[in-house]
């Protein structure tokens, strides 16, 4: 890949590649070229295929009357697989491999498609990691807004006990879609977005290892997200069994459940592709001198996360295929009356979904490490322990899944080892918190928006961590499992943890990604409103749970009315605070002051190139000569843009092997 650093290839081909076509090209050419026109007729083909296949199968399997050859749910299920795949084919996600497979001349990647010159370039297959990074991030934030609006609707229903304006089934759909969208289509992919943009630059590479796979993995994301959202249009309503989709409730759901089962497959495939790409990129494409222990901790975090994704994600794919096969083809995996095992679903599901918690947290840890070092003007305290604790979390993350099942009726003995590992996994997490605190100590703290979100993260995530340890204690979990205490805990981890790091990261890399500065004053308003209303929303939920309020209920006992009204009001204000963020992002991106290359005086490589970075990131392959966080070390340099000067590479570069001092 390093050989691809060269002058841009041939002149950019005309707008024939534009998904909207070009007024000058004929309709036939538009329909043949990769883009939305071709995707449209190919999707029609996909739906026709679904009709044909199910018709054929039902005819040959003993449905005697013609009327029964067509079955709505069967057609829909197959169409939900075929049509999205045909969309991806139409938009050009598979073109290279198809050409190769049929023996036609392939078009080698000449990077002529790199870069985005108009907004339309973000709506086509693009192999540039920076374009994909922005595609990922913006798409994910669209899903954040959808998920957040759904949450505000839920809080409206919960403002008072009894039914307000939606029925219980719709309410169940709302929280199910809320969680599914925000987990699978916001938190997990938004970190892939940051990683895509920043990691190749951080390690001194011109792009990701597999640019075509990267483009395909992005386009799976909006496809999967729209599948999940469109389940609201399904007869019988959207899936209403939570993001956990426990069988046999999920096998009894109306057809909306299929939208979840298949939406997850697209999100999962996207995750796996991106994770493989990160792993290969990080292992093989580091610039000269970038040893593993000179990598920024964000790179370490994405390395660890990608290991989790690659190993764990197939398990959720399996669990949802089981549900699909149970529903569609009567496999009876989870039908107790036919010898099925209901608890097996939960084991397979949580074997992914517990590591998924770390998939949603470790990249955030990486972001915090970057920001806290730069904004405290100090090296990360205990860099190696920070890297090792990430790996420890990866390993331990696979040993705790059944702590979600302490009250599930599984064999009693499993609870003991799982409770112990759940406690032990708090140790590496604690190491990270303490190391960040020690990094703050005696620094020179720049308290701007990214740093404020970082400091807030330290506090709110600690609350989520502590309530997590409390839930590892078996008698406590036996009381509180599935109560509102769990709702509070998960939001302190995913909002107080993940989302705080995401906001911190957006503000921190905004100048690099857009070439513009955001409005600091609006950023601070956004921070304070988010921090205050977040805590007012979720802190009282701990007490609701302790007092006996179950989660996932559309109505509740009158004794909880006052607290719930308070929470609802706080949650609406929390939702409104997002408007400040949106306004800041949009206006700053359109007309903010131009950003300099290195506004934060960071040492990592992404700050050594222009904002936004040039199309191929570096004009010359950079050389890494020191650690990434040598703030305060006189004359220390992390990387230089070009080959190392003679003699410098041989001798000990400054700032690498410093003795540890108090």
């Amino acid at each position, binding site marked *: 890949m390093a050989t691809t650093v060269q002058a841009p290839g041939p002149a950019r081909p005309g707008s024939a590649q534009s998904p909207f076509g070009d007024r000058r090209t004929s309709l036939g050419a538009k329909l043949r070229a990769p883009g939305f026109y071709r995707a449209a007729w190919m999707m029609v083909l996909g739906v026709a295929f679904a009709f044909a296949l199910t018709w054929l199968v039902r005819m040959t399997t003993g449905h005697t009357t013609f009327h029964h050859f067509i079955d709505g749910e069967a057609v829909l299920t197959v169409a939900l697989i075929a049509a999205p795949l045909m969309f991806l084919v139409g938009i050009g996600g598979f073109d290279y491999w198809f050409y190769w497979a049929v023996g036609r001349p392939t078009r080698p990647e000449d990077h002529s498609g790199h870069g985005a010159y108009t907004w339309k370039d973000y709506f086509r297959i693009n192999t540039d990691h920076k374009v994909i990074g922005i595609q990922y991030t913006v798409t994910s934030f669209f899903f954040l807004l959808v998920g957040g609006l759904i949450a505000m609707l839920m809080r409206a229903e919960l403002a008072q006990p009894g039914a307000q304006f939606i029925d219980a089934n719709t309410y169940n759909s709302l929280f199910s879609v809320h969680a599914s969208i925000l987990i699978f289509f916001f938190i997990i992919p938004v970190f892939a977005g940051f990683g895509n943009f920043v990691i190749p630059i951080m390690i001194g590479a011109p792009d990701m290892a597999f640019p075509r796979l990267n483009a395909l993995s992005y386009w799976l994301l909006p496809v999967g997200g729209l599948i999940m959202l469109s389940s609201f249009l399904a007869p019988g309503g959207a899936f209403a069994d939570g993001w956990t989709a*426990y069988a046999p409730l999920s096998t009894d759901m109306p057809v909306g459940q299929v939208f979840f089962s298949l939406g997850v497959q697209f999100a999962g495939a996207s995750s796996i592709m991106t994770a493989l790409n990160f792993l290969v990129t990080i292992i093989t494409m580091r610039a000269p001198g970038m040893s593993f222990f000179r990598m920024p901790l964000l790179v370490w975090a994405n390395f660890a996360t990608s290991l989790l994704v690659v190993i764990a994600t197939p398990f959720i794919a399996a669990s949802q295929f089981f549900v699909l096969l149970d529903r569609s083809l009567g496999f009876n995996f989870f039908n107790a009356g036919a010898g099925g095992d209901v608890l097996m679903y939960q084991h397979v599901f949580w074997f992914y979904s517990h590591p998924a918690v770390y998939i949603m947290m470790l990249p955030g840890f990486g972001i915090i490490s970057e920001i806290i070092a730069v904004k405290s003007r100090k090296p990360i305290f205990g860099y190696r322990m920070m890297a090792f604790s990430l790996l420890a979390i990866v390993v331990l993350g696979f040993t705790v899944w059944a702590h979600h099942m302490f009250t599930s009726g599984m064999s009693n003995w499993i609870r003991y080892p799982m*409770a112990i590992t759940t406690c032990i996994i708090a*140790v590496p997490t604690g190491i990270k918190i303490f190391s960040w605190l*020690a990094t*703050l100590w005696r620094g020179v*703290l*720049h308290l701007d928006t990214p740093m404020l979100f970082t400091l807030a993260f330290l506090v709110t995530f600690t609350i989520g961590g502590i309530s997590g*340890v409390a839930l590892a204690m078996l008698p406590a979990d036996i*009381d509180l499992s599935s109560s509102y205490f769990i709702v509070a805990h998960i939001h302190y981890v995913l909002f107080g943890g993940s989302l705080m790091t995401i906001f911190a990261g957006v503000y921190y890399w905004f100048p690099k990604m857009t070439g513009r500065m955001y409005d600091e004053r609006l950023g601070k308003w956004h921070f304070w409103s988010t921090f205050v209303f977040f805590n007012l929303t979720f802190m009282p939920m701990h007490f609701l749970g302790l007092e006996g309020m179950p989660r996932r209920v559309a*109505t509740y006992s009158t004794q909880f009315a006052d607290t719930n009204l308070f929470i609802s009001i706080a949650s609406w204000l929390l939702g409104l605070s997002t408007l400040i963020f949106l306004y800041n992002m949009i206006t700053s991106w359109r007309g903010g002051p131009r950003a300099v290359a290195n506004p934060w005086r960071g040492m990592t490589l992404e700050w050594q190139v222009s904002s936004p970075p040039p199309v191929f990131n570096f004009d010359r392959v950079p050389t890494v000569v020191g650690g990434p966080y040598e703030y305060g070390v006189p004359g220390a340099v992390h990387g230089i843009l070009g080959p190392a000067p003679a003699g410098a590479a041989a001798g000990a570069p400054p700032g690498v092997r410093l003795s540890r001092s108090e």
Partner: protein
Amino acid sequence: MPTRRAITTTALAALIASAVAIALSFVIHWFPVEASTQAKNTDRLYHVLVVASVPIFMLVVTVVLFSVWQFRMRPGEELKDGPPIHGNTRLEVFWTAIPAMILLGLVSYSFVVLHENERKPPGVPEIQIGVTGQQFFWSYEYPSSVTGGAPLKSYQLYLPEGDTVYFNMQSKDVIHAFWIPAFRLQEDVVPGITTHYRATPNRLGTYPVVCNLLCGSGHSLMRSAVHVVPPAQFRAWLTSQERSGSTVATASATPPGGAGAPGAIAGAAAG
């Protein structure tokens, strides 16, 4: 501020904040009434957890606030860097080992409490009651060993105070969870298997019974109540139920605490 004094100040502030917060945690009334011996044990565990957690939380908050106060960038320090401190092995070993020991201590204690909660208390009579969950109501079965005659099926849960009750729980459709917050106990009710737990009610009164696992559109209304009554009253209730004919053979009345009955929630809350 010199380093040593900074550390002392922070530690002192964290200590005072922790002491205040722990004191508050004992004053505030957090939990619903304790209506079983298990609830007493679990609440004791809660208090231990609060005492162990608050200092850690306060330490984090204090260090953050102290750093913001003392180490924030002042005008003129825009280009200044902090001291290049890369780590301290002794400190890192310390904050790995101490939390690990605290956590292992806590989890060991939790096992002790769990054992206390799950064992059969010696010298206390134990009765078995069947619990059936189905969309969207609970029903209860008092076997012959309890009624002394024909088994009794009811939509009401009456328990004698002081006896230990062993629930045998089954589901007719999807997974439910049989949660009695006043007892601090729950377990899923799973199709295909029978699950169990043991409770020793020790306080008279009526307390909510809550389905605590999403089971469908009526989940939020799947409530019932547990009436803890003196043993004599329990026997009298059983007799009255038998006389009124709501035995297994004839029970067909709609569940009083079942789906959609608004009184169920209000009644349960009143307990």
